[in-house]
């Protein structure tokens, strides 16, 4: 049981030191150390004040979930589950022992239980996260296991109760896509609220001949950073696409460490970031082709569009490739640009207002990544979220 009622993340972790459970995770956390402004993956996120802040430590109540159309998680507690889905609350969750992110271990050490979902047949799952508490530290982990030969889609959405602000949500997935299985994971994370911070630290293993499609859509004025460690086994196939529209003072980003471990493994990454106002975009993609990953291929591309006229918007893109084998195909690139004045003028010369012209061009930049989603209803939800983010951004010329 958590005894602490208020404190920083470290206070919470310290309080665990008196307990025996999950000391392992804590050891890993200590080895990596508390992230600061010099920690590579948090360099542009200003993590320091977030971790120094004292939060109310949420006590996770014991709730028996009701049956519903989708999985609903409120402040880290599962309140609703469809009957068709196998979901259990586990007390001794497994974790990866070589993650690069200290907060991955902090999340594991701070979460007493883990939400475990096992997918045994082809299914589409929606997971809706709702944050209702203010000034709270909410930590929870989800383990997702897609069994052999199974084809699953997980669609993740987020909601912030209007009065909830100042909270830190530290969550994350441990995902196993087993042999010959496929998982399409779509995250639609629209945060208009400026006051909650969300950190997601994930670990994903794509087994032999399995495929993972990671499609993320992060929009709005709230700050969030997602960190992924992804391991690809033989003939594993990863497609990851990341669309970000950050407004106001948001910092939004994806940090990925992708390891090609098996032969013939394949990864394609495409990121498009639209950064408005005084927001910051982070795309940090490290791809390692390990010694045993002969005949692998990887392609990575990130494009950013900075929209604010006064130079308030920033983009940090860091594509990196580390190669430890000789037979492979690899390419990467990144670019940062602005809206094209000639194109804006062309549209305006036909009577289209400057606001509408810019919107058309921004959508033209982004739309390709929305079209990857096969589900029409989800595309519409993503488009709506994109619109909301766009309309909330300041309309400075």
């Amino acid at each position: 049981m958590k005894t602490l009622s208020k404190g920083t993340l470290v206070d919470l972790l310290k309080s665990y030191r008196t307990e025996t459970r999950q000391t392992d995770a804590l050891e890993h956390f200590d080895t990596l150390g508390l992230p600061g402004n010099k920690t590579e993956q948090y360099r542009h996120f200003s993590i320091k004040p977030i971790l120094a802040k004292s939060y109310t430590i949420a006590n996770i109540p014991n709730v028996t979930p009701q049956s519903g159309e989708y999985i609903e998680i409120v402040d880290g507690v599962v309140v609703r589950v469809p009957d068709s889905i196998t979901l259990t609350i586990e007390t001794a969750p497994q974790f990866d022992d070589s993650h690069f992110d200290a907060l991955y271990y902090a999340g594991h050490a701070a979460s007493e239980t883990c939400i475990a979902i096992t997918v045994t047949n082809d299914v589409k799952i929606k997971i809706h996260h709702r944050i209702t508490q203010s000034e709270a530290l909410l930590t929870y982990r989800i383990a997702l296991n897609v069994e052999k030969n199974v084809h699953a889609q997980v669609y993740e959405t987020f909601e912030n109760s209007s009065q909830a602000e100042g909270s830190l949500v530290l969550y994350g997935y441990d995902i196993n896509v087993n042999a010959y299985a496929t998982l399409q994971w779509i995250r639609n994370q629209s945060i208009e609220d400026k006051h909650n911070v969300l950190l997601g630290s994930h670990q994903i293993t794509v087994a032999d001949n399995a495929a993972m499609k990671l499609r993320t859509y992060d929009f709005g004025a709230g700050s969030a950073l997602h960190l992924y460690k992804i391991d690809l086994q033989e003939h594993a196939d990863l497609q990851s696409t990341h669309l970000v529209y950050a407004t106001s003072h948001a910092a939004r980003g994806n940090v990925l460490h992708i390891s090609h471990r098996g032969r013939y493994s394949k990864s394609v990454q495409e990121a498009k970031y639209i950064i408005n106002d005084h927001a910051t975009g982070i795309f940090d993609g490290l791809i390692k082709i390990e010694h045993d990953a002969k005949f692998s291929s990887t392609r990575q591309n990130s494009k950013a569009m900075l929209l604010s006229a006064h130079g308030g918007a920033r983009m940090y893109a860091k594509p990196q490739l580390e190669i430890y084998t000789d037979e492979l195909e690899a390419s990467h690139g990144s670019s940062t640009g602005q809206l094209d004045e000639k194109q804006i003028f062309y549209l305006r010369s036909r009577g289209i207002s400057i606001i509408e012209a810019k919107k058309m061009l921004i959508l033209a930049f982004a739309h390709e990544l929305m079209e990857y989603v096969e589900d029409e209803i989800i595309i519409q939800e993503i488009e709506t979220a994109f619109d909301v983010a766009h309309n909330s951004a300041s309309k400075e010329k």
Partner: protein
Amino acid sequence: MLEIKNLYAEIEGKSILKGLNLTLEKGKVHAIMGPNGSGKSTLSKAIVGHYEVKVTDGDIIYKGNSILEMEADERALEGIFMSFQNPIEVPGVNNAYFLRTALNAKREHEGKTQLNAAEFLKLMRVQLEQLGMKKDMIQRSLNDGFSGGEKKRNEILQMEILQPSVIILDEIDSGLDIDALKAVAEGINRIKSPERTFLVITHYSRILDYIKPDYIHILQDGQIVKTGGPELVEALEAEGYKIVGKES
């Protein structure tokens, strides 16, 4: 209908138009000819409010008012249209969606109801056929990968849909094959009316054979140096710009 008075304009600090005077009459077709680099495109850009062109003196009067302070989209909504010498490619923006947005902006400005996608496509079908454009052209990205001739036809398509009052065609005929030239000229003739004015910029007499200009103006070194009737074209064709006295 449109009066250009003693217009001085520069691009990138370089003086291009040097006291240009020109009056475009309602219902008439004006043609402008002139050597490369004399300022023809600069003049059209000044009329539509292009950001590159800085007007330093003089005025442009349209419907009785100066338009120099108006934004490009306002000028367009008021009925001023220019076909680009080099139409811009806009990857990712669907041509049909662009055309409909432009038309609806105009309709809104005129207090008319908006057209939905179905109504708009119906209207388009006839226009496309008349211009000899393939149907898939409007489902592609705007001008993206269009051939030179396809881009020009797309400009005429925009003109026909928007039904402007002052129509400036900047070298609409260059790079067109014989059929395209004919299709484009027919498009222009279709919307000719006593209420409209055309300013046709060209280097060749061929398009003028189709659209029959009322006036020919010669622009040289930032000024209109000669104005005459269609007979001027023949003289130019025969002798070149030396008929206006200066070598270019």
